[in-house]
């Protein structure tokens, strides 16, 4: 089976014209389906840069990123947007829900972008909100949800498109312990039951302890990549 994510000598240099800053160098990783991987490292170590490159939000200056065998660095902007829609789910640190939509509409909206059947969208949005424990809050807008609830809606939204994998950039950074643990429980359950691949960055030791694979970055380079006993 093809790996979900495969990078080879991946590198990113910012401001290559003036004073170059190397954010990532020679990162070679392979992530298979169903992995629950965290990327750790101190601030400025290149975690977010790596996630951005894996998610097709940024383009590498060297090396390649293949998602399900497709080198996404070669895709043009509209193709890349489409690729992200169908293949990658995102969970952001600041949730980034659409403030004028309810929880259900936030989850449904991304499926509408995929032009799915309306009945199917409605059923799936309700089912996902149920799975993240928010069926009772589905008609509420983000401003009326707590941070933990918003992040759970964001997870439901990320799952909605049935992506190949989900990228989460510091998903628990703005959550209290209970909400963070609850979110991790949900992500773990999705990973275990549905074999959904998660790749997330974190500083949070509680999260690191729950990951099954931990990739450590220092100064833009991978220094360790180890399986973690969870």
């Amino acid at each position: 089976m093809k790996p979900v994510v495969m990078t080879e000598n991946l590198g990113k240099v910012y401001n290559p014209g003036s004073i170059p800053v190397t954010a990532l160098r020679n990162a070679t990783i392979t992530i298979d389906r169903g992995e629950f991987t965290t990327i750790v490292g101190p601030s400025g170590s290149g975690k977010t840069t790596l996630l951005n490159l894996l998610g097709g939000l940024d383009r590498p200056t060297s090396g390649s990123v293949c998602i399900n065998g497709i080198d996404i660095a070669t895709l043009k902007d509209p193709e890349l947007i489409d690729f992200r829609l169908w293949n990658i789910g995102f969970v952001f640190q600041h949730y980034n829900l659409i403030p004028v939509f309810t929880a259900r509409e936030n989850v449904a909206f991304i499926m509408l972008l995929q032009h799915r059947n309306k009945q199917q969208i409605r059923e799936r949005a309700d089912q996902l909100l149920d799975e993240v424990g928010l069926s009772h809050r589905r008609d509420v807008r983000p401003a009326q949800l707590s941070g933990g609830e918003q992040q759970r809606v964001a997870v439901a939204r990320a799952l909605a498109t049935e992506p190949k994998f989900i990228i989460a950039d510091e998903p628990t950074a703005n959550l209290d312990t209970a909400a963070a643990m609850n979110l991790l429980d949900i992500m773990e359950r999705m990973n275990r039951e549905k074999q959904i691949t998660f790749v997330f960055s974190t500083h949070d030791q509680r999260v690191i302890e729950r990951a099954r694979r931990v990739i450590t970055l220092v100064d833009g380079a991978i220094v360790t990549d180890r399986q973690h006993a969870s």
Partner: protein
Amino acid sequence: MPIDFILAWRNIWRNRRRTLITVGGVLFAVVLSIFSQSLNRGSHEIMLDNMIRFGTGYLQLQDEAYRDEPSLDNSFTWEAATARRVAAAHPRTGQLLPRIETFMLAAGDQATRGSLVVGIDADAEQRFNGLTDRISAGRFFTPDKPEVVVGQGLARRLQLTTGDTLALIGQGRFGMSASGLFEIVGIIKHPLREQDDQIVYLPIDVARQLLSAEGQITTLLVAPERASETEAIATALRRTFKDDGIRVLTWPELMPELLNLLRLDMAGSYLLSGILYIVIGFGFYATVLTMTLERLREFGTLISLGMKRTRLIRVIFLETLSISLIGVAAGLTLAWLVLFYFRLYPIRLRGDLAATVIDMGWEPILPVSFAANIFFSQGVIVFVLALVISLYPLLKIIRLDILTAARS
């Protein structure tokens, strides 16, 4: 309802006060612009209507030399066959008003003045412009009798009234001398002031006889069933009479100076509207600018999640358009109500201005126009404004770097 529209609609109400202020600005511009144009157009419409009804008609047939040299020598023969050809040229040609006119000296016991002598078919004129209803003293003439109706201004100048005799002296067709004595049976208050001071109406056959122009007319006015068909009828008539030495002229061709004057007058209104829209445009732009800048991160998120830039642009355009349309719709409604009010209760003129207007035969009011294109043009202008203003977010979204947006 399409999700893009729902998203756009909810977005515009995210900041209710800001949206209402912007809508209010558009509404204000639309109302003020329509109102000023409507007042101008209202006066123009009355002026043109009078000029058309009592002067040129919607279109005229003349001998091809008459325009350059308006003389009886350049009249043309008017007979039943010609009338049939005119009527056959277009299914809705409407009424025909033959006229024969020339300048003559009009004399009473006390004074002599230059006058415009017009031989008319009184029944046809009455049907077209209600001429006989404008009699202020006496009655209208009887066809075939040597009776005349004179303008109030001319009668005053000549110190004549009904029952007096008017002498007309001048030149008829082909240099024949023309003179005659006529009984003044009526005084008319002519709506065109210039004509009121010099007009003498007499039966067309009597005029022809006086001017040695039996069977001739100088102009044939055509009053189409629908004024909007004037140009089409003119085209048909030009085709019909192309080999007859007869020229067909529409009212804009007959009064180019007046039209230019009215256009110049309208330019003031357009300028005011233009300034209004520039001011409103900047206000609108400020709203769109703020709406765009405070949502860059959201735009970045939407594109990250898989929303195409073109679709996002469509949503933002729908937002701008919705605000514009709400403003325009509210503005049009309010403007219509305001105009309707002023149609029912017109602004009345006072003092010298009122006296001047009454003197010209009009009501001393500021009339308003309900011409559809005044309303329509505002919609178009605001739509174009929305399009132009949408360019900013459009360019911003096209160039948006999603990582920079995420950090904003």
